């Protein structure tokens, strides 16, 4: 392990020589730029950084980073990352995935990586559509969505990815969007610093198959009135002048109110470190979809034992207790007998 200082880098150092092949105007470009520009600030080494993806538009991401990377198979990135992260705690493992990859075909791997709390930073680009396969509805598409595979409208209730992650015992859950580089970078920075599995939902515009899906909340004009920034230790309020806020009613329900009506002191103070994920879950249910005021930022950030570290601890403990394994002794661990 090298002890020399991490070399100073620029975005260019983190950019591979491969031509980026997303559709012009795709939200993925701004997410890529945000990540490439953030990396020099994280104080990490390129050679110790790995991006792992599954299949989908988002999954091309690793090819554009000049780090180690693997473009794997549909939905399996969290499983592959689990094997890598648990055997190589010295690496920074990032998983880049989409709503179809993470929540449909790979749903099982996502929830288990989260509950185990394996050290990995999962960026899930949610565009509420299948892009790479040319426009079928996804597990986050709104009900009645008309697509090539649902000409009469989709029937399934969508997942709320933040609710899902919280339900899966995730220790870090956040949401950001592709129109705000600063917010993305701050969210990614926090996620990266988290000592466990970090899940970040990134609202991402697919301008070809689902253009404007988040426009009602993420467009420049709408943001202040439609995005509810979550800041740890701060009252939850939004609006150009902070005129609206969130309160918790006596029955536990969260409600959006005018601050002038309830008074500043009645506002709910955001506590991302609460042990009980119930309030974070309630916050994730505040908006029924990206057309109502929607919380963004860190919903939950709690400390919990990290899986790979625990696995390593068991190895060390076994070696302390029994000494480093001796194959010759192992083969004789039952009863042996000698002939001749």
């Amino acid at each position, binding site marked *: 392990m090298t002890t020399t200082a991490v070399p100073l880098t620029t975005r260019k150092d983190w950019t*591979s020589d*491969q031509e980026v092949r997303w559709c012009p105007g795709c939200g993925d470009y701004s997410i890529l730029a945000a990540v490439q520009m953030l990396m020099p600030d994280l104080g990490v*080494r*390129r*050679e*110790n*950084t*790995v*991006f*792992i993806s599954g*299949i989908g538009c988002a999954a091309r991401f*690793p*090819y554009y*980073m000049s*780090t*180690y*990377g*693997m*473009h*794997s*198979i549909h939905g*399996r990135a969290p*499983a*592959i*990352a*689990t*094997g*890598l*992260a*648990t*055997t*190589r705690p*010295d*690496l920074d493992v990032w998983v880049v995935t989409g709503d179809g990859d993470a929540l449909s075909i790979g749903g*099982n*791997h996502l*929830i*288990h990586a989260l509950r185990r709390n394996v050290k990995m930073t999962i960026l899930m680009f949610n565009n509420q559509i299948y892009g790479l396969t040319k426009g079928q509805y996804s597990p986050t598409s709104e009900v009645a969505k008309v697509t090539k595979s649902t000409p009469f409208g989709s029937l399934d209730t969508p997942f709320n990815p933040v609710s899902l992650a919280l339900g899966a015992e995730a220790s870090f859950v956040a949401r950001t969007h592709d129109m705000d580089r600063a917010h993305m970078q701050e969210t990614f920075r926090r996620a990266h610093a988290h000592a466990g599995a970090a899940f970040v939902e990134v609202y991402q515009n697919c301008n070809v198959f689902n253009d404007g899906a988040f426009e009602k909340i993420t467009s420049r004009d709408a943001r202040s009135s439609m995005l509810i920034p979550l800041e740890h230790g701060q009252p939850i309020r939004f609006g150009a002048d902070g005129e609206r806020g969130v309160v918790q009613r006596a029955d536990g329900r969260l409600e959006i109110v005018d601050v002038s009506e309830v008074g500043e002191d009645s506002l709910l103070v955001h506590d991302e470190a609460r042990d009980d994920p119930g309030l974070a879950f309630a916050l994730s249910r505040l908006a029924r979809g990206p057309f109502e005021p929607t919380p963004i930022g860190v919903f939950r950030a709690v400390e919990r034992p990290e899986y790979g570290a625990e*696995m390593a601890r*068991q*190895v060390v*403990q*076994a*070696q302390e*207790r029994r*000494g*480093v*394994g001796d*194959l*010759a002794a*192992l*083969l*004789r661990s*039952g*009863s*042996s*007998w*000698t*002939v*001749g």
Partner: protein
Amino acid sequence: MATKSEHPPEQLDRVVIRFAGDSGDGMQLTGDRFTTSSALLGNDLATFPDFPAEIRAPAGTLAGVSAFQVHISDHDILTPGDAPNVLVAMNPAALRANIGVLPKGATVVVNVDAFDERSLTKAGYEANPLTDGSLSSYSVYEVPMTSITQEVCKEAGVKPRDAERSKNFFALGLVSWLYTRPTEPTVGWIAKRFADRPQVAEANTRAFRAGFDFGETTELFESHYEVRAAPFEPGEYVQVTGNQALAWGLIAAARQAGLPLFLGSYPITPASDILHELSRRKEFGVRTFQAEDEIAGVGAALGAAFGGALGVTTTSGPGLDLKSETIGLAINLELPLVIIDVQRGGPSTGLPTKTEQADLLHAMYGRHGEAPIPIVAAMTPSHCFDAAIEATRLAVTYRTPVILLSDGYLANGAEPWKLPNLDALPVIEPGFATGPNHTADDGTQTFWPYERDERTLARPWAPPGVAGLEHRIGGLEKAAGTGNVSYDPANHEKMVRIRAAKISGISTDIAPVVVDDEHGDATVLVLGWGSTFGAIAAGVRRVRARGLSVAHAHLTHLNPFPANLGDVLARYQQVLVPEVNLGQLSRLVRAEFLVDAHSLNQVRGTPFRAAEIEAAILSLMEAP
């Protein structure tokens, strides 16, 4: 009562004993203990545990019968025996389920206490077989195992209901007397195993001793027997099952390669014991990961391999189906990965606890696209150790997934194993990339992840962490050399052919197939693979005992075949291929070598009997 201990035991050269009872009767444990004390006596042995898929099928029914067959001898043996000489039946169902395989004249020891009206009906007997004369061609011994066990345990204050559970130790004690096994190893084992439950230990010990004394002091048995030690090669021996040897082989392989071992696995019968064994061995730096499913098991193993570990996944048939996609990815990534398939009866859930060899073509072809990978098969329980090392050697050397085929028979079967010389194990060289391997046109040094070794055609293995070697790999077709995504048709053709050539080239790096042709004058060759080794070799011995010549070749490499296999096959007029499937290797050798191979097949969930192999060889010899 008169004691007969002054009678010296009669000598036997071999005996096959089958312990049978309810799933809850502890028959596997009983058989296992008998096996261990026989191993310590120096007998050669082979075992065949045969149990139902249900953990506790309804008590007393045929479906719930669990059996353990053990063959002990004073000479070298190869199989658990075609038919038992002795059946120990703990209840009517156990008798009924096993009487069919018993040759006339065999000995039957029954727990007569269990032959009540209700149990007889449950087992489907209309009349009591002990009294209706249907067992007249057997020597039947009726022993009140339950009641004596309860009686001796009562003195130790054990309630009859609890004492009843110790009756398998009574049976073990009785059979131990019958075959002159020492008592100390079992008594010592009971004390150790039940150290935290002294009353259970006491009950089991009393039951065991009571069984032994019953044989010694009653006049029921006319004589007792001894099977002397077999003349083993000098050396240190242990008794191993296939799954145990396989787990140890993986630890040894990781040691030989200097790599940390990572196992990603999902519980599945009959492979789970490998996961269990490895998860106990963390002092070897072994990391075991019980994944959320079969796909995650192999995915995590592949992720670990990307990071420079020895990535292994263990499974059985249905799990192999699920892993196919990831194996395909590993083929494109060209990373080492060891996939262990402990085959069982299929398709689908099939026969989870029964053996079969029907996954060979799946291992060979069960992926989309042109996706060749090496296949290694274990021949005997102890050979699983060597097979694990060989699979690892090929995976690491050639940067490829390798499937290792074991099966239910090997997994649970036990045999004595002469411990290997650890200094003589093959050294496996991971040869990680350390620096650039390519000079660009402008003279700069770069790293090309798909540049190849000239001899092996393997690409560099460059785990993350080395500055300057950063690279991206993936399932999309790679451009030769650079490894960049390439949709170029000519490049795809080139890469498909290179991947195929890399695997087929392994044929020169594996041991040639050895032919056992005693006098070199055989015209019939028996070609087997994997776990049929014992039965084929025993069948061949029987044919030779008739003064006839027959040759035997056994494959442990199924893809690619050893380089000399074509020549070997061409030397014989007839080739017989026995397989526990409907003819999979026979198809492969027919296709590859245009040889008119005769298939001998059975899929009963049990290994071949030596007699079946013998009969097939003889009928082939007689054929015009």
